[in-house]
């Protein structure tokens, strides 16, 4: 029972070592880290096999041979761990050339000595199936090669770990934990116990410990390139399936069985090829998509930065125009004749329209993406509308339109909104109504249609809006035509108003008929 389990564990370890060597190498064949780890996994695989043979064979000479093979195969392990620690997780081999030659020389010398009688000069079978090993003088060279390079490798690893941060730190931690624990255990059971305590009792465990190290490291490297695992895994699955079916072809009992096996094999081969191709394509597409997404994000960021800068630069002169015009109209430079005041009002309106346009262009992206920061507070809608009324009464007068504001008795109009944003909404709606009304009136009305709700209506006697145009209006860049047939506006004002009212928990809408004027309305919950 124990022997079957042992045999199974050996087969399992060999398969896992092979699997990991394959995956790690295919993950990035150009990377020195991946190549060294792959080589380490292959060497551990050979160690597993030769260790098993040394322990399971009964013939003394054969055992000694395989023990020497174990020493030969494991000579590069210490230096490999040292090289892996130096390179991990880089792609290029950045070792000092002299150091590299010294390492190679050490490995070659140790390996040659390993298969000679100078490392283990003799083996004696003991009753019960065990054996005793007699080390030679070169065991010290083997030991030095192993311990020196392992220790150096661990020191490099810990130094790197101390200096690192982020993902690299996580990877190095996994690497360090895996390597140190696995190798400490392996050295204890397969070298110290054998050479110092002359016991081979635990040597069968050695190769299994390698799974700890290889597993940790493979996970550390492959972690953020997980997508490629799909292709490799599907390739391996397909190879295994094809090999199993191929081997079955040679085990047929009848011609009929053979024909069936050939047909199954052919189909599996075709579909396996298609499967691997489709998985590769999917992975490739996903990688391309990721690349495009990164590019888009970068472009989006650039666009935002450009708009912010442009808005900032445009606003500076607009601030000066707004400021000086207001100061003239407030009489800071002396009394201003009415006619001049009238003309100045035109400049103020034009400038304010420009400012609103810049604000809308700047804000639309932020509001859509939820990046807008709102300064919420309780606001009396009446106050905001009074400000709006004062802002637009000049423009309305210039067009000979009656402009008034009306609210019902006992109005409850306290709402929880961002004061500047609700002002923006009302000015957008009022500005639209006045723009699209050439004669008659524009009225702003506040009412409570039911308890807990306040309704603001902006009613105009303009040309009205057709059903088709109504559908476009609250959409981004949706615009209507004025009576002169030209489209006016950027198409952002109503869209932004809709986003804002909905953000504040309200509703916005329009009632209109072509030729019969329009009523833009919004409702908000009262506080």
């Amino acid at each position, binding site marked *: 029972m124990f022997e079957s389990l042992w045999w199974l564990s050996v087969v399992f370890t060999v398969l896992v070592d092979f699997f990991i060597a394959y995956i790690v190498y295919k993950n990035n064949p150009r990377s020195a880290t991946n190549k060294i780890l792959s080589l380490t996994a292959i060497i551990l695989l050979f160690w597993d096999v030769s260790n098993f043979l040394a322990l399971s064979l009964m013939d003394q000479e054969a055992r000694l041979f395989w023990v020497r093979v174990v020493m030969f195969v494991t000579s590069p392990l210490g230096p490999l761990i040292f090289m892996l620690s130096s390179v991990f997780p880089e792609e290029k081999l950045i070792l000092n050339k002299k150091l590299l030659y010294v390492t190679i020389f050490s490995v070659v010398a140790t390996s040659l000595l390993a298969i000679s009688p100078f490392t283990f000069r003799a083996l004696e079978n003991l009753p019960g199936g065990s054996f005793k090993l007699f080390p030679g003088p070169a065991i010290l060279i083997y030991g030095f090669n192993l311990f020196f390079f392992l220790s150096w490798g661990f020191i490099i690893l810990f130094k790197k770990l101390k200096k690192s941060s982020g993902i690299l730190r996580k990877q190095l931690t996994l690497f360090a934990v895996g390597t140190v624990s696995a190798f400490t255990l392996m050295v204890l059971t397969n070298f110290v116990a054998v050479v110092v305590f002359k016991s081979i009792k635990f040597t069968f465990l050695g190769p299994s410990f390698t799974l700890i190290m290889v597993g940790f490291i493979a996970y550390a490297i492959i972690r953020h390139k997980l997508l490629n695992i799909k292709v490799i895994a599907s390739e391996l699955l397909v190879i295994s399936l094809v090999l199993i079916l191929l081997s079955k072809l040679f085990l047929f009992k009848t011609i009929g069985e053979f024909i069936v096996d050939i047909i199954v094999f052919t189909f599996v081969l075709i579909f396996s090829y298609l499967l691997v191709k489709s998985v590769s394509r999917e992975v490739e597409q996903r990688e391309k998509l990721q690349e495009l997404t990164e590019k888009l994000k970068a472009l989006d960021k650039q666009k935002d930065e450009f708009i*912010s800068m442009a*808005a*900032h630069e445009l*606003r*500076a*002169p*607009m*601030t*000066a125009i*707004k*400021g*000086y015009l*207001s*100061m003239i109209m*407030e009489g*800071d430079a002396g009394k201003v004749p009415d006619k001049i005041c009238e003309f100045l009002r035109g400049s103020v309106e034009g400038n304010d329209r420009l*400012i609103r346009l*810049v*604000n809308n262009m*700047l*804000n639309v992206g*932020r509001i859509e993406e939820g*990046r*807008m*920061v709102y300064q919420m507070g309780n606001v009396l809608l009446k106050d905001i509308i009074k400000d709006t009324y004062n802002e637009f009464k000049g423009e309305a007068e210039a067009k000979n339109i009656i402009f008034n504001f009306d609210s019902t008795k006992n109005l409850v109009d306290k709402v929880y909104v961002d004061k*500047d944003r609700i002002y923006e909404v009302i000015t957008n709606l009022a500005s639209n109504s006045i723009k699209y009304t050439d004669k008659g009136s524009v009225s702003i009305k506040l009412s409570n249609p039911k308890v807990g709700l306040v309704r603001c209506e902006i009613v105009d006697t303009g040309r009205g809006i057709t059903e088709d145009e109504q559908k476009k209006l609250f959409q981004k860049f949706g615009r209507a035509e004025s009576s002169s047939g030209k489209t006016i506006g950027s198409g952002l004002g109503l869209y932004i108003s809709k986003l804002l009212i909905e953000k504040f928990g309200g509703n916005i809408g329009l009632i209109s008929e072509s030729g019969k004027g329009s009523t833009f309305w919004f409702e908000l919950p009262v506080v």
Partner: protein
Amino acid sequence: MIADNQNNTESKKMILLVEDDPLLVKMYSTKLIKEGYGVISAEDGECGLNLALSQKIDLILLDVMMPKLSGIDLLIKLRQDPKGKDIPVIVISNLTQEEEAQKALSLGAKEYLIKANLTPSQIIEKIRKYLVG
């Protein structure tokens, strides 16, 4: 750096205007003086910080994008100094980066105003609010 109307400053409230655009400095200074305030102006953040800590200032009108020291950095240094930590500050800017607004308000600025959206009179109304008493 310009120091305007510093005569008879005992009764006047002194406003430090830290703004690098000369057009806007002239505009705000004119209005502030007309409304009875004393005005000291600085054309960059470094000059502004020095004045804030060396002169008797009742309120600071602070721009954000400026040479040598930005408005936010000025505010950070101002709050680290015992002489400057209690001076009311109103940030006036044409930048609408939320991070800047949040930073300014977290550093104790009373308001973060967009210059282009307000007339000088409207800004002075805000100043009056924070200079009561």
